[in-house]
């Protein structure tokens, strides 16, 4: 199972096995990590699952939809490497991916 490392706003790192087909958001919620709130349950509605993806990992995920891009444009703490983790579907190639959880998810 691919292992995803979550770097939390307090600097701590958590390596979590995330089943293929689930999202980076799912892995965090499943393990009760703080920081990813996921109010809408993963329907790209709320922007409370904001993460930063390491540059060398970005190509492992589908490109952003216009909807995700627009939600992120005005999200607190938005950067060039921002993604909504509910849109990051994990595949076998994602083993070893690191994401940093935004401190601005509420």
């Amino acid at each position, binding site marked *: 199972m691919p292992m995803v490392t979550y770097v939390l706003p307090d600097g701590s790192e958590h390596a979590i096995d995330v089943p293929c087909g689930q999202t980076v958001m799912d892995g965090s919620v*499943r393990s009760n*990590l703080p920081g990813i709130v996921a109010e*809408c*349950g993963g329907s790209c509605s709320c922007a409370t699952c904001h993460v930063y993806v390491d540059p060398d990992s970005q190509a492992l995920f589908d490109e952003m939809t216009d909807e995700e891009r*627009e*939600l992120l*444009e*005005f999200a607190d703490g938005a950067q060039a490497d921002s993604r909504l983790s509910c849109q990051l579907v994990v595949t076998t190639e994602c083993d070893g991916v690191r994401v940093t959880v935004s401190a601005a998810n*509420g």
Partner: protein
Amino acid sequence: MTQQRVSSDDRRVVVVGGGHAGGTLVGMLRQAGFAGEIVMFGQETELPYHRPPLSKKFIDGDLEQWLRAPEFYREQNISVRLGESIESIDPAARRVYSSSAQATEYDLLVLATGAEPRRLPVPGTDLAGVFTLRTLADARVLRKAVISGSRIAIIGGGYVGLEVAAVARANGVDVTVIEREDRVLARVASTRLSEILAAYHRDRGTKILTGAQVVGLSGDDGHVRGVLLGDGTQVPCDIALVGIGALPRDELAVAAGLACEQGILVDHRARTSDPAIFAIGDVTRRPLTGVDGLQRLESIPSAVEQARQATASIVGAAPAPAEVPWFWSDQFDLKLKIAGVVSAPPGTILRGDPASGRFALFHHVDGKITAVESANSPGEFMAGKKFIAGGERIDPTRLADPAVPLRDTVIK
């Protein structure tokens, strides 16, 4: 056998209610390092679940979307007691009593009892084929009852009613929405949004009757066949859905002597009038930044915000910053997102074209945004939410022009 704990806490938190608020709170307490005992009572026999799919996806989507995986609660050492309703609270003894008259002691109690559908006080609501929609069990029954080609009368043109109307209509059901006020969403949306959405539904074949008083439901063989209106007309139907709002389930709190006023009164830290009792979610009447008095907000973001407030209060963390209230709704291909409090502000700016299904209504007082109602416009929604929180002054003319980037609409 070794057991490791980062800290110890001999307090027991009892949560009454296993909805989105209660389910979120118990997870957040563990996230925040609360090491004491957590017991959550749920009246329904289901683990906490996402409620939006019940109306948004009740025909062909996944109804059962659990808030957390079933094993989560055991792993997090949270005791979940489903199908067990709490009947009374003894605040002096710090005990709650369940339906089996069993007592459970608490150090801190969190009431997250939610709301229940408002009943329609007319004859005929006990006929077969008359439904309300609040729980997963309700949605399962409604899903079976709604068949393509059948006719549904939806009493109440609120968000739940319109979401069900959209799904039913998209699946070939004959839909009539019956609204008592002179427009749909009268209580929650601006007049402009009501008009746009009503037109959107009508264009897709839904009949909407406004200013219509329901005086009864008629049936034969015990099954509903029509909705009787005050003007003597009858809306024929095979099923009827009553969606006329929800009432806070504050009976326990009232009986326990907590300050209540159609909802449990709480402060910005989710505290009730009893220092050992907190309340969160739809059952509360809560303060809201920039708005006088206490408000009832029936939304997931509000429930989550209050779960965060209660968690901070319980573990002694700094209070969380106030959030701009918001919620979302899906109707046909429209993803609606609304932020702020829609009252009757003096100014409204339309950005985009309602006919295209992509637009936003910005409500403002002298260029200061108080609310945004958006459809398929996540950028406008997020910007609007920021403008509301930050109090920036925007240029109405520039904001009305979709060619002007949102960032450039702020008056520097």
